């Protein structure tokens, strides 16, 4: 299901506007099979048990770009991230990557995880966490191992002496850095950061974000940055994708979308972000919550919470259409 497609090829290696990864119509559902009978006799009519985590998502990421994916918990962003990294297989759709038939199983897409506690094996020393995969794939030999690990730790802002420590002996920020070093060890081209700076202290968050910038320059990396923190996404992204209930609702360049958001959900999100320069607010928050995955509303999935809702929104789901070059939005208000 994985084909190699190369879209624009320029002769000069540097000014290449090349798609690194193209995601086409990806969908993924999970079924809540809870007992033996349902497993043996799957009932296709039993729609209540099927959660469509990701629903027909299409986008692409160009070389050297930072694409931010924003959404709240339950919108499917983590699932999408894992599909791209080949941790989960999509039910429908295709992903094409790079130019020379590189399958998704390659090491060129790596993930940085959110939870610093659970993303490192508690039984492994830092040295082994970083060197296990390169040794296994024969990217580095046993005698080069020490030097290799030292070099990576240094590039990620860690002291060589953490090499022999266990994860529980490190701070949260240090563990994050080890996770980054582990991903870098296999020389990836695309880094998928799943809430990589969430839960970090502000001062550590700044250090890690700066590290991401530095690594991008040194290693020519491309990032797919999944986050619920709009202020971070605004700062680092070139392109921004907003997801709601498994679908893309808006997609545009970061400058465009933050200056003048189009989709009502994007507008609501922007208004909700606490901003240090807005004092003594009487918040006017958006009402309601994202609906539970098993109770999808008809029509536009956002309509129960939308303050601009019209009758068509309740019936027909809007398509994601281009409202101006490079800007897509899925809202009926755009058509008429």
């Amino acid at each position: 299901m994985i084909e190699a497609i190369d879209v624009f090829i320029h002769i000069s290696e540097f000014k290449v506007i090349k798609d690194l990864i193209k995601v086409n119509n990806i969908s993924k559902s999970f079924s809540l099979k809870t007992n033996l009978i349902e497993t043996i006799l799957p009932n296709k009519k039993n729609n209540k048990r099927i959660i469509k985590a990701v629903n027909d998502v299409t986008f692409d990421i160009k070389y050297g770009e930072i694409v931010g994916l924003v959404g709240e918990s339950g919108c499917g962003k983590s699932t999408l991230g894992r599909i791209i990294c080949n941790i989960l297989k999509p039910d429908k759709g295709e992903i094409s990557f790079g130019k020379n038939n590189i399958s998704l199983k390659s090491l060129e897409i790596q993930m940085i995880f959110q939870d610093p506690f659970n993303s490192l094996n508690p039984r492994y020393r830092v040295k082994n966490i970083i060197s296990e995969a390169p040794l296994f794939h024969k990217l580095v030999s046993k005698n080069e191992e020490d030097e290799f690990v030292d070099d990576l730790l240094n590039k990620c802002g860690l002291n060589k002496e953490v090499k022999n420590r266990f994860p529980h002996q490190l701070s949260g920020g240090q563990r994050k850095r080890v996770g980054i070093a582990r991903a870098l060890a296999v020389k990836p081209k695309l880094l998928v950061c799943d809430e990589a700076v969430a839960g970090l202290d502000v001062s550590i968050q700044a250090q890690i974000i700066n590290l991401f910038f530095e690594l991008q320059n040194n290693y020519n990396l491309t990032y797919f940055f999944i986050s619920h923190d709009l202020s971070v996404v605004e700062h680092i992204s070139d392109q921004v994708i907003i997801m709601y209930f498994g679908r893309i609702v808006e997609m545009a360049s970061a400058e465009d979308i933050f200056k003048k958001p189009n989709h009502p959900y994007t507008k609501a999100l922007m208004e909700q972000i606490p901003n240090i320069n807005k004092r003594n607010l009487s918040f006017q928050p958006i009402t309601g919550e994202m609906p539970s995955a098993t109770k999808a509303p008809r029509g536009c999935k956002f309509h129960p919470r939308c303050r601009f809702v019209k009758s068509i929104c309740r019936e027909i789901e809007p398509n994601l259409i281009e409202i101006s070059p490079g800007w897509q939005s899925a809202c009926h208000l755009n058509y008429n």
Partner: protein
Amino acid sequence: MSSLNPYKKLWSEFCENKIAFLALCILLVLIVLSLLSPIISPQDPYNLSEINILEGRLPPGTLSESGYIYVLGTDDQGRDMLSAILYGLRISLAVGVASGLFAFILGLTVGLFAAYNRGIIDILIMRFVDMQLSFPAILIALILLTTLGRGTDKVIIALIASQWVYYARVARGTALTELNKEYIESALCLNLSKFRIIIFQLLPNCLPPLIVVMTIEIGHAIALEATLSFLGVGLPITKPSLGLLISNGYEYMLYGKYWISMFPGIALLILILTINVVGDHLRDILNPRLKQ
């Protein structure tokens, strides 16, 4: 962020409880005694030339003809009780540990296999495990022994077969929790082989709760084997375990010759009790740490 070795920390936590520490010491003494039994016991109870049947059923403290004192008396065959108990301890421990170890390996393998594969395989395996768990272990062991017959190896097989399910259940549960953690996802992302993920990443993290199960289950195995031997379907007479010794002396209890049953009984009691106390305490201190 202490730099203490996690095992050293475990040890110091363990030693905080004086009773558990005492139990561990006694257990170690019993193990050493049983290992050294050929050397330290005054008599080899299975060597017929050393036994004098005329010296049977003598009370504790009697002087024997050969010059040493029967510290715990003799049984009906004239065997020195102390020697018999030491040898019996050895057998009981050997059988218990051997069956525990193999049950552990079997249960761990099946549990990990079920957890990693999920789906129908997992469901079928676990339903079988549940079914077996609903029968008492002694019943399963008895049924197996009647079909397999007598012999040390058959007893060990029966013990393994009745015990592996406890390990499988815990192994599967722990493996499922660990498989949801992100370091496993990272290993998948890094394209490590399935074998490597299960053996190097998953297995070491599933071990702590299983070690606890093992200590307690070895205690059960020893008790189970003693029961089987007491009933006469366990180990052969040529290898008298503590259970058989108790069984032999049972009829003499009413005649006041208590020592033939009681001393092996006390030895068995202390053995199982210390194993249980150590295992219990291990479980207690490991539990909150698992939640960290």
